[in-house]
């Protein structure tokens, strides 16, 4: 039997969060953590968590499993369980709505700040704005982000300043548009990032790289933004 400990908190009825223990019979199978949560939900229907696609595409079930952020649907028990114990907590640093469900407003607000859409004020061509294969390749490793928030909520700089530091997820998207050959708002985008918090709170500890379920590298993207700022300002 797998020992699972789950963070429980209902702000409307509980004065403080607590951990609740469950015993789960996995039948010796190497299930995904989301499967285990579904089995726990069958035992206690009041356990709350987000889920949707159950295949690592929607980014709904970002959780902290045995101390490391990840997507419950694509994290196998063999990757996270130690000594037959699994501790599941909500993503750190964001307000808890209930149990494992967090309020993502701060995260989305930072995403909104980087204006994650293509900006081009030149007259639109008849069919589409073309891009060479080489320019398109520059977006690889950037566009794949699913906004699960595993990276930003594993970053201490985001924990302390979630209202001022854009965080790895937002900055990855900022660079995705800075690197796009079709975008013409590069200078305006960079001007909004040259303050002591938005980008420069990143100290390069790479927690974001360590947890990204899609294998992306926000630290590298942040380094590119820094270099773009540096080459324009010196």
């Amino acid at each position, binding site marked *: 039997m797998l020992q699972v400990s789950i963070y429980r908190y209902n702000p409307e009825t509980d004065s403080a969060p607590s951990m609740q223990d469950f015993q789960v019979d996995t039948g010796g199978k190497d299930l995904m953590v989301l499967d285990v949560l579904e089995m726990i939900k069958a035992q206690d229907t009041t356990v709350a968590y987000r889920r949707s696609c159950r295949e690592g595409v929607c980014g709904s079930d970002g959780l902290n499993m045995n101390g490391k952020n990840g997507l419950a649907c694509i994290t196998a028990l063999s990757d996270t369980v130690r000594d037959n114990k699994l501790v599941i907590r909500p993503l750190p640093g964001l307000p808890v709505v209930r149990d494992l469900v967090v309020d993502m407003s701060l995260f989305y607000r930072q995403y909104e700040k980087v204006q994650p859409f293509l900006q081009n004020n030149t007259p639109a061509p008849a069919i589409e704005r073309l891009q060479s294969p080489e320019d398109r390749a520059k977006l690889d490793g950037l566009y794949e982000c699913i906004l699960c928030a595993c990276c930003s909520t594993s970053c201490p700089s985001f924990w*302390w300043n979630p209202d001022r530091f854009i965080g790895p997820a937002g900055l990855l998207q900022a660079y995705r548009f800075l690197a796009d050959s079709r975008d013409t708002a590069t200078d305006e985008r960079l001007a909004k990032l040259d303050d002591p918090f938005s*980008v420069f709170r990143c100290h390069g500890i790479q927690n974001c790289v360590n947890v990204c379920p899609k294998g992306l590298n926000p630290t590298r993207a942040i380094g590119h933004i820094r270099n773009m700022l540096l080459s324009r*300002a010196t």
Partner: protein
Amino acid sequence: MVRAVTSFGRSGLSDWLLQRVTAVILVAYFLCIGASLLGGVSYAEWKSMFEGTAMRIFTLLAVLSLAAHAWIGMWSVGTDYLTERLMGKTGNVLRLAYQIGCGLVIFVYVIWTIQILWG
């Protein structure tokens, strides 16, 4: 864009760049001092070393670098942990007091160094 009037250069990029340049200067200075100490140095040799203008200017440069480096680092620590978000309004009072305290200590160190070098 987040406004910050107490950061060293008012710009994230300038603070970031300055912190790296000052770090290189400090490494060079401490390597220079370390090499002198490891080579064995008497009081008279030490005194004569610091009577040279070049060494005095290098030391002043190192202390000014330390001052800038320390302010940027301490400012970052203060704006991480002493905040309204973590402590309520008290955080703002504590942070400002902390920044004034850091500024005073750094100022004293700079003046003290100048006094030692040319006093």
